[in-house]
């Protein structure tokens, strides 16, 4: 296929202040351009036709991965490849590195940003389940000020979020993990050009005093519902319980029941359970090291 994009004017703000000022000025007529791996495809398919593109490539200050005493902070323009290759993320937040390391292809990972991935809000967004179980928060900036919102509740439907028309996502904040925490991201792929995720499961466990006692467990999935989701009913199956094989199986079955797949329903439900079991086991292993 050969595509000609619809015409637009290209605006190049040099700062976040300038960017949100432009967003507020142009409103519905403008779209924000980060890595371009989602937006330009939409433009080529003529799904959107903004008169203005606000290019963020000049905002180098939004590319960072930093750890302070409270949290891991990731700039919204940080590429998937930067996150996947970061020793800091691989060491302490391995599930996020795994997820970002399987997005698209090497070239797409070099271009696509974590902020763009979240704001595009695709149901199969790999970065979402790990960030959901990590209880990530998002910093949203506009000319009206800034707010911090939990990622849980950010997605409202396929490609829909609570982001206001004039807001820019600038930072992803991941609270520091307590000791005896382990995580995992497990996935299966569709057979597509860039191996889109068929089912993705992230699990995070926090162990209690006794060897197998699960103090806290969080599970999130992508590609099994209109948006990436936490499965709170399934989580309560293992919370405060000993992680026996039976308990893990129960939790896995509960996860499958909570999913809402739109297509390949039976297979996705079955695989949700399989991947949940694997994710919990891997998370437990990491937590008890």
């Amino acid at each position, binding site marked *: 296929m050969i595509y000609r994009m619809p015409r637009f*004017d*290209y605006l190049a703000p040099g700062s976040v202040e300038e960017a949100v000022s432009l967003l507020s000025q142009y409103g519905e007529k403008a779209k924000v351009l980060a890595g*371009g791996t989602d937006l330009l495809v939409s433009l080529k398919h003529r799904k959107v036709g903004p008169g203005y593109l606000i290019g963020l490539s000049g905002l180098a200050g939004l590319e960072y991965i930093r750890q302070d005493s409270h949290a891991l902070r990731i700039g919204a323009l940080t590429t998937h490849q930067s996150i996947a290759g970061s020793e800091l993320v691989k060491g302490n937040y391995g599930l996020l590195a795994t997820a970002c390391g399987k997005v698209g*292809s*090497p*070239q797409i990972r070099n271009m696509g940003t974590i902020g763009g991935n979240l704001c595009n809000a695709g149901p199969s967004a790999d970065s979402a389940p790990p960030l959901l179980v990590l209880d990530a928060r998002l910093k949203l900036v506009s000319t009206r000020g800034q707010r911090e919102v939990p990622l849980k509740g950010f997605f409202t439907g396929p490609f829909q979020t609570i982001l206001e028309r004039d807001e820019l996502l600038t930072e992803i904040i991941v609270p520091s993990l307590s000791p005896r925490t382990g995580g995992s991201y497990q996935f299966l792929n569709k057979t597509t050009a*860039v191996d889109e995720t068929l089912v993705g499961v992230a699990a995070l466990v926090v162990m209690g005093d006794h060897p197998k006692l699960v103090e806290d467990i969080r599970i999130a999935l992508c590609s099994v519902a209109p948006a990436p989701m936490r499965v709170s009913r399934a989580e309560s199956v293992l919370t405060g319980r000993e992680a026996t094989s039976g308990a893990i199986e129960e939790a896995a079955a509960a996860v499958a029941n909570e999913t809402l797949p739109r297509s390949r329903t039976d297979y996705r439900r079955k695989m949700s359970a399989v991947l949940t079991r694997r994710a919990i086991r891997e998370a437990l292993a990491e937590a008890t090291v």
Partner: protein
Amino acid sequence: MKQKIKLTVNSEIYELEIEPHWTLLEVLREKLFLTGTKKGCDCGDCGACTVLVDGTAKLSCLMLAVEAQGKNILTIEGLANGKELHPLQQAFIDKGAVQCGFCTPGMIMSAKALLDKNPAPTEKEVKAGVSGNLCRCTGYIKIIDAVLAACENKRS
């Protein structure tokens, strides 16, 4: 509205007038006549349009030409040193890794990005390195052999 831009491609500086909605791929092929970079799917799935941007493999079909300013763009045309082929190019020929040749420039650019970061990759790492480049002809085996052979050539 047309915009004047300056692009650095294969160490040469080009001054052009372009429209903001033109992709880097379109500008490379239609304005600079560097047709080695191919337009396959034109939507980020096939990798035929892969170029190196400051040493990093990217899809030129998903890059706006205006955003390629201030970067060093390397295309397949920039690999050979006069008549002397780059070890990757020679290896692709020697190993029979070229059939129709359409995927080849993109494959070589992805392979170059890999070898520049990891000069002695395993077979698994080579496969991962070109996993964003589709080939309809060869079945990939000779392409992987060629990339591995190029490492040998580079070392000796």
